């Protein structure tokens, strides 16, 4: 080995703690980068593969009841490849030992086959056998939540008739990767399941012999999706079509797409922070090393080493540190990526996870970190190479200090000498002090992201379900009914309040922008649905005109006073114009509201309602729920709160994982910055501090001068970091916004407290390590050698 390379190794070894602290930051950056991108690619790949292998449909539509003969006409639509008609029943399920109401969708399977489109993936057990009418397949997540196994049985109420079903297999479906009850926002695997059974028995139980109520189809390459949807709507219209929609609007697909979008944000935001901090750290550490070695550099040049050779020498040192970071980061990234992908595989109902690690991700991670490192140290390296040797051989001139601004303001008498030293040190290197502060502040911000998710969901739930949607249960009717239906509901025991709603599927259009959603017609004096403005104050619904939630209004770019065009997607499908009366703040969905009478007037219907919102005594909630299910007129019951709590259980794992990772990584940055800054301060002021010790200062007094500076910067960094953290959360929240939900940037006090605590602990750990170094301060040696 070359002598110079030996020098490199020995120096690297001597500064191993500092190098490790820097490498740790790089490991974090690369780790997150690879984790997020490999998870993203794996999810994409897995989803695509699953979709392809199991023939996930591209267009979906449901109807009231259409004869099978319609199939031929559907197949004849230009651009349609394959069509599969189905019978889909919304059923109540009874599971032994579980008294809560459970609902589900029962889908028909062509006899003895997994289906043509949206094929199920058999995870456990077998397919139903022909002729055995009670055999069903159950969605895997639901079965797992309920502890169902092949061989178990459960009761179902189909169309008011009870039936016993036997589970023969547990399956996954491309259609239900994100499995969510209609009208719900969060998945609730205990209270909602998807089941498949042979078509014949289902059709006869559901009065669908020779008919279908659901159709899915795929398109030929190059066909126009919208054309097909329009033609489909035309044909299905008279059979009670509900408006066909494309894959993009399919709920499971949409949720997954949103998740992927968020993953992408994480994949970009975090590494930027980490690489920035790493560049800064490398810069300070290498600058210091070079200024310590300026005489060595001068002699090397005197011996005939060229600038390039010297630049390369230190460049190698940098790359070695970065190299450790890269290797560690790749390892950590793959490990975390696999962990996270598997977590997602569980969280979403994916049959398998194809872990994808694209080579370019690794190459990009390595190249980016090397570039960042070189950029971070280029200045120091150039300074090292540029220094004329004759000059470098002379000791560096004493640093220029001045009295600080604070002192000049006439406050100096309040400061002891050591405190003045601290202040002057900070003021002499404003940029460095600023960057150190910024580095610590960034770590504070990163930690805050960890607490942000939970706080946001809490707040979203509080506003949406605590203040705005105040009902306990929603009963949806099979078809619009008269207001009289509410009387029977009101008379049930434990029911406190009932309000009728009319929900209509529509497409809202303003200029060229349009969105498919539903208008909710509610009473003017509705208590259970409260519309809130941005300051969460109640907004009253005007007698005519429509109120949109802020997100929908923003999407359509409408303002109060604009005329909105409404294409109703049911009944006689009228097209009408309505004035936008206002907007309200909501974190979920894309909702539009009108007074029920006004909506019915538009539709040309009487006092019809399509569902009822109910507030009930919680002691009776289960009974009421079950009783509602027995009513033939009730198509389904939605219980948002139960869904929320079970959602918390499902996402808890992911949230904890994220919180853990970002806290850990934030701690890494904080430690990296503080420890390195302290080490450098120690090396820069070695002589000064040793002289003070010689003069009779105690170790703690000397430590005060050294650590006081970093302590002060850390204290300044914490509030700054909190502001940065808030900004980061704001940015993440804006990136996470979607049709389905908006993430309010809400941060609990505890989040701030946690971030501050982690920073302070990291600083204390660094301080303890430096304290031990101070014990080894060699007074004699320091005074003997010249500098």
């Amino acid at each position, binding site marked *: 080995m*070359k*002598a*110079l390379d*030996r*020098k490199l190794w*020995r*120096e690297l070894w*001597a500064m191993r703690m500092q190098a490790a602290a820097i490498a740790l930051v790089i490991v974090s950056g690369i780790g997150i980068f690879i984790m997020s991108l490999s998870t993203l690619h794996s999810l994409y790949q897995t989803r695509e593969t699953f979709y392809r292998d199991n023939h996930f449909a591209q267009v979906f539509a449901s109807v009231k009841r259409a004869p099978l003969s319609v199939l031929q006409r559907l197949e004849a639509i230009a651009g349609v490849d394959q069509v599969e008609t189905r019978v889909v029943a919304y059923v109540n399920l009874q599971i032994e030992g579980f008294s809560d109401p459970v609902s589900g969708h029962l889908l028909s399977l062509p006899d003895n086959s997994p289906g043509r489109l949206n094929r199920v993936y058999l995870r456990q057990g077998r397919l139903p056998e022909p002729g055995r009418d009670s055999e069903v397949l159950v969605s895997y997540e639901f079965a797992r939540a309920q502890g169902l196994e092949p061989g178990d049985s459960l009761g179902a109420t189909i169309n008011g008739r009870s039936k016993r079903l036997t589970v023969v297999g547990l399956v996954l479906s491309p259609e239900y990767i994100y499995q969510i009850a209609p009208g719900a926002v969060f998945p609730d695997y205990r209270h909602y399941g998807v089941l498949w059974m042979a078509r014949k028995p289902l059709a006869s139980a559901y009065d669908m012999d020779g008919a279908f109520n659901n159709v899915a189809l795929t398109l030929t390459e190059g066909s126009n999706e919208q054309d097909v949807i329009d033609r489909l709507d035309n044909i299905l219209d008279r059979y009670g079509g509900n408006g066909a929609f494309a894959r993009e609007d399919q709920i499971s697909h949409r949720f997954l797409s949103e998740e992927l979008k968020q993953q992408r944000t994480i994949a970009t935001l975090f590494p930027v922070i980490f690489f920035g901090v790493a560049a800064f750290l490398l810069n300070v550490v290498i600058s210091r090393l070079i200024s310590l070695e300026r*005489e*060595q550099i*001068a*002699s*090397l*040049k*005197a*011996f*005939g*080493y*060229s*600038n390039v*050779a010297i630049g390369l020498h230190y460049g190698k040192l940098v790359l070695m540190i970065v190299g450790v970071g890269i290797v560690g980061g790749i390892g950590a990234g793959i490990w975390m990526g696999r962990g996270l992908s598997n977590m997602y595989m569980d969280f979403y109902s994916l049959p398998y996870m194809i872990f994808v690690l694209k080579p370019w991700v690794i190459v990009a991670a390595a190249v980016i970190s090397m570039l960042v490192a070189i950029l971070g140290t280029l200045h120091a390296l150039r300074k090292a190479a540029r220094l*004329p*040797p*004759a*000059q470098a*051989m002379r000791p560096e001139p004493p640093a220029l200090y001045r009295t600080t601004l604070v002192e000049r303001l006439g406050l100096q008498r309040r400061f002891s000498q050591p405190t003045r030293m601290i202040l002057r040190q900070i003021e002499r290197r404003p940029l460095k002090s600023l960057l150190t502060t910024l580095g610590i502040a960034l770590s504070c911000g990163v930690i805050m992201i960890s607490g942000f998710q939970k706080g946001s969901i809490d707040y979203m739930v509080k506003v949406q379900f605590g203040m705005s949607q105040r009902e306990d249960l929603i009963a949806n009717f099979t078809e619009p009914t008269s207001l009289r239906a509410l009387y029977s509901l009101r008379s049930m025991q434990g029911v406190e309040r009932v309000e009728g709603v009319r929900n209509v599927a529509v497409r809202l259009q303003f200029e060229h922008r349009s969105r498919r959603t539903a208008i909710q017609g509610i009473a003017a004096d509705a208590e259970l649905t409260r519309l809130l403005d941005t300051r969460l104050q109640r907004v009253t619904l005007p007698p005519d005109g429509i109120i949109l939630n802020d997100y929908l209004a923003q999407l359509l770019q409408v303002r109060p006073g604009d005329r909105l065009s409404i294409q109703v997607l049911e009944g006689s499908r009228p097209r009408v114009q309505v004035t936008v009366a206002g907007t309200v703040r909501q974190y979920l969905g894309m909702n539009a509201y009108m007074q029920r009478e006004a909506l019915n007037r538009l539709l040309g219907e009487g006092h019809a309602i399509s569902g009822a919102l109910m507030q009930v005594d919680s002691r009776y909630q289960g009974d009421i729920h079950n009783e509602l299910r027995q009513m033939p007129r009730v198509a389904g019951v939605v219980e948002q709160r139960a869904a929320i709590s079970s959602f918390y259980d499902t996402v808890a794992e992911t949230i904890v994982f994220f919180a853990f990772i970002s806290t850990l990584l934030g701690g890494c940055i904080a430690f990296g910055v503080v420890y390195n800054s302290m080490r450098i301060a120690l090396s820069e002021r070695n002589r000064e501090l040793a002289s003070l010790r010689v003069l009779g200062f105690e170790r703690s007094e000397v430590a005060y001068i050294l650590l006081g500076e970093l302590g002060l910067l850390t204290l300044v960094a914490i509030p700054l970091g909190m502001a940065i953290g808030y900004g980061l959360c704001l940015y993440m929240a804006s990136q996470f916004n979607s049709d389905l939900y908006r993430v309010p940037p809400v941060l609990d006090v505890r989040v701030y407290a946690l971030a501050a605590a982690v920073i302070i602990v990291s600083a204390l750990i660094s301080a303890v390590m430096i304290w031990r170094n101070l014990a080894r301060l060699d007074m004699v040696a320091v005074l003997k050698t*010249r500098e």
Partner: protein
Amino acid sequence: MSPQSQQRHSPLEPGVVFHVHGVTKVYQMGEVSVHALRGVDLDLYNGEFAVLLGASGSGKSTLLNILGGLDTPTDGHVFYGERDLTRADEGELTEYRRYHVGFVFQFYNLIPSLTARENVAVVTEIARSPMSPEKALQMVELGQRLDHFPAQLSGGEQQRVAIARAIAKNPDVLLCDEPTGALDSKTGIVVLEALQRVNEELGTTTVVITHNAGIAQMANRVIQLADGRITDVRANASRLPPRELTW
């Protein structure tokens, strides 16, 4: 300065290694300018042992650094053989230092993280026809301390490692800036003996800076500097061996 005038000053005399002509050096320190050299003319001869004598601040180091290609003069010319060092660019100066010059500094400037042998190897690895680090260290009588780190060596031993490092490449000239400045006289004598042996055995042109008149007695020639000017050049009729020097 015109090309013709340069031509006139190129070394014609045989045996001249360095031809210094009208060299001035001004350091700009903010408002004030420091005149370190104020017009120096000097010839140095092949194989000679010259001592640069002068008070602290008289410009000795500045002159030596210019000779060694570590610094460039503000004005004037320095010829190394046929080569005008003042017109050389960075790369040429690096090449010049690498293959022709050996340096010994007052504060040794060893690399603390490398052993004695490795400190020498740093230079031999880039030289053209070096001696082995072991041989160079034997010449300064440090053959048994090969694997010691600088911190484990005394000042005199460190300086001898520095000499070994300077001579290991078989340089044409050896430039030493106060090699004994940080040493007591007994140790200093050991170092000077090493320098003299190298000068005699290898015939290396050697320039030694000192502010100590006693040392001047071991030189062929003594060049006296004061306030940036050469005030006196004299040849020693008889040279004293280092052992007999006192200071």
